[in-house]
């Protein structure tokens, strides 16, 4: 299995200045019997927005937690998570002592959880969460709060009102934005967002996405955006990675991954995306269901649902192969995928909805 990931790395994922590198990361429960993250290797380019897509239960949240070495007990994370504060320095996050880890989390890599409503202590004012965080990291509280006010204003919130409110006094969108402000409080280099917009309505999702782009520019932060909502992240991300059954199956620049997707699963996922413009008959749900974390099939984990699957697929795990510069895929038959599975939405613009992502 190690060879698979090594090959991905050698195959070149187009990352020249990685800020975070994940190598052979696996998360196991039950003393190694259950894999909820299976040998994942990828890199995050400094100052990019990486979109990670996958269906529910594909290991996305585990991937997010792994970046902060915050796998909930009794899960066990193995592999390497390398952090490069600058291009010449490398530290292994998994080697950190508890104190170093406490300092690293939130100050270097911070995280926005899914469901902002449950991320705040309901009996504490929002402002107190900011103060607690500053105190825990020995930062100056007045200066930190001043900075917090600035971020909150940038997120179109009234700082005084929000800081002086209890969480339940804010709307879902306000809580989500307050949580984003809290995660930026210590000026982290990397912001990991795990389904940050899942609980919000469509309009609020859209406006938060627009805000995130501004925030990224202003605060110079690298973003990892994890979601099940492919069209949503396609409008935001520079690069995308697709997860299936606790593994990475395809990664590449956004436009290439959407328009030239080479993994049968990615293509099927695109075809199953609801689209208001497409007639209902064109929607193609993917038959079958993804495997449980126990008894993952020996070969390609998608083989049971894949129209291209052959004996080879069932027997051997596909290695990553380069499709084009920076675009890699783990499939034995990726060359045939494009003609075998036709993308139904015609043009990717309908998916992205982003002006610069306009393909011809």
């Amino acid at each position, binding site marked *: 299995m190690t060879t698979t990931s090594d090959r991905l790395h050698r195959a070149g994922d187009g990352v020249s200045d990685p800020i975070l590198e994940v190598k052979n990361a696996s998360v196991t429960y039950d003393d190694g019997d259950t894999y909820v993250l299976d040998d994942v290797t990828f890199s995050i380019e400094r100052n990019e927005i990486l979109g990670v897509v996958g269906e529910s239960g594909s290991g996305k949240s585990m991937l997010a937690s792994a970046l902060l070495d*915050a796998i909930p007990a009794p899960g066990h994370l193995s592999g390497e998570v390398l952090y490069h504060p600058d291009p010449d320095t490398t530290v292994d996050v998994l080697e950190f002592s508890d104190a170093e880890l406490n300092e690293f989390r939130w100050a270097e890599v911070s995280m926005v959880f899914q469901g902002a409503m449950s991320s*705040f202590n309901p009996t504490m004012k929002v402002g107190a969460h900011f103060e607690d965080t500053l105190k825990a990291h020995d930062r100056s509280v007045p200066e930190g709060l001043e900075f917090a006010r600035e971020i909150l204003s940038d997120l179109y919130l009234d700082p005084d009102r929000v800081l002086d409110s209890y969480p339940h006094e804010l709307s879902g969108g306000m809580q989500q934005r307050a949580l984003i402000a809290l995660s930026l409080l210590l000026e982290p280099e990397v912001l990991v967002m795990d389904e940050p917009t899942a609980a919000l309505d469509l309009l609020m999702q859209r406006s938060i996405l627009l805000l995130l782009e501004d925030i990224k520019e202003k605060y110079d932060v690298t973003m990892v955006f994890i979601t099940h909502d492919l069209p949503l992240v396609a409008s935001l991300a520079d690069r995308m990675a697709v997860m299936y059954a606790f593994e990475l199956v395809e990664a590449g620049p956004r436009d290439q991954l959407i328009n030239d997707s080479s993994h049968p699963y990615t293509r099927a996922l695109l075809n199953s995306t609801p689209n208001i413009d497409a007639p209902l008959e064109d929607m193609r749900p993917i038959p079958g269901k993804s495997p449980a974390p126990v008894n993952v099939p020996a070969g390609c984990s998608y083989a049971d649902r894949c129209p291209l699957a052959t004996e080879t697929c069932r027997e051997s795990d596909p290695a990553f192969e380069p499709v084009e510069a920076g675009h890699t895929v783990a499939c034995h038959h990726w060359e045939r995928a494009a003609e075998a599975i036709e993308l139904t939405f015609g043009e990717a613009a309908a998916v992205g909805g982003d002006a610069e992502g306009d393909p011809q």
Partner: protein
Amino acid sequence: MGHYYLRRTARAFVTVFLVTSLSFGLIRLLPGGPFTLLRANLLRQGVPASEVDARIASLQNIQPDAPLWRQYLDYMGAAAQGDFGTSISLDEPVAQIIAEAVPWTVFIVLVSTVLIFVFGILLGAIQAYWEGSRFDQLVSGASITLMSVPFYVVAVLALFVFAYQFGWFPTAGTVGPTVEPGLTMEFVTSALNHAALPIFSYTITGIGGQALAMRGNSIQVLGNDYVEVARLRGLSDRRIATRYVARNAILPLYTGFLLLLGFRLGGTVILEQIFSYPGLGYYMWSALESNDYPLMMGTFLVITVALVIGVYIADLTYGLIDPRISRGETDAY
């Protein structure tokens, strides 16, 4: 907001009024009626039959020959002024007997309820942190066992073993017979010595339930995202344990605390009887046995009013300790 307090206060007064009226009616339903015994006593003492009614009236604020509505009004009027008449069996004003008995009962109930909560919360919190450990299983088992034992069984056993067999504690009374009341060392130790067994019986049978409730609440709170987020934000374990977990886990227990206080007050009728501890419950029992209606009504009222006050305080203060309950928005919790 003001509206809410007003409504709660009005409701408390209405409840007390209804309870007082009910006690007036209930007592009159008891066999023998309120004044039969008193009348017999007075006649035996040689009071002329023509003056008996007047004597009853002066003792109990009620004219026995007046129509019922008149008796009711007189009774309510006197009760509102804190005058419950004169005890038939003890020949002292009921208000005075109650005033002497209440501090002892409050002492026992308050101390045992506070102990129940302190130990219950500590045990439950530790169990939650070590969920599934041997300690957790052991304490859970013990909690369920103790919960199933009524306090009076423990009381009788404790009295038999520790007071009669070992002689470590007195078998009756609130303080030693020779001890002068006052803030002296002697008085305090004597009072504690006398109260130890009643408090013990109340506490040991109550801890289990609170520990289990706290354990459940804590486990639920520990599973919340905000605890995990706080951990990622680098907060110290102590800060998370107190401000993020304990506070949210204890909040739902608060109303129960004040209600328990009230219910325990009612339980003293049995507890104080077992330990011959002359508190409120003790006098209520002896009043029942000797058909002492004024004393019965007085103690009954004080216990009920205490419960109403407990609920009232819970109502008013819950909004202060839990910001999510804003006064006036909702009636139910």
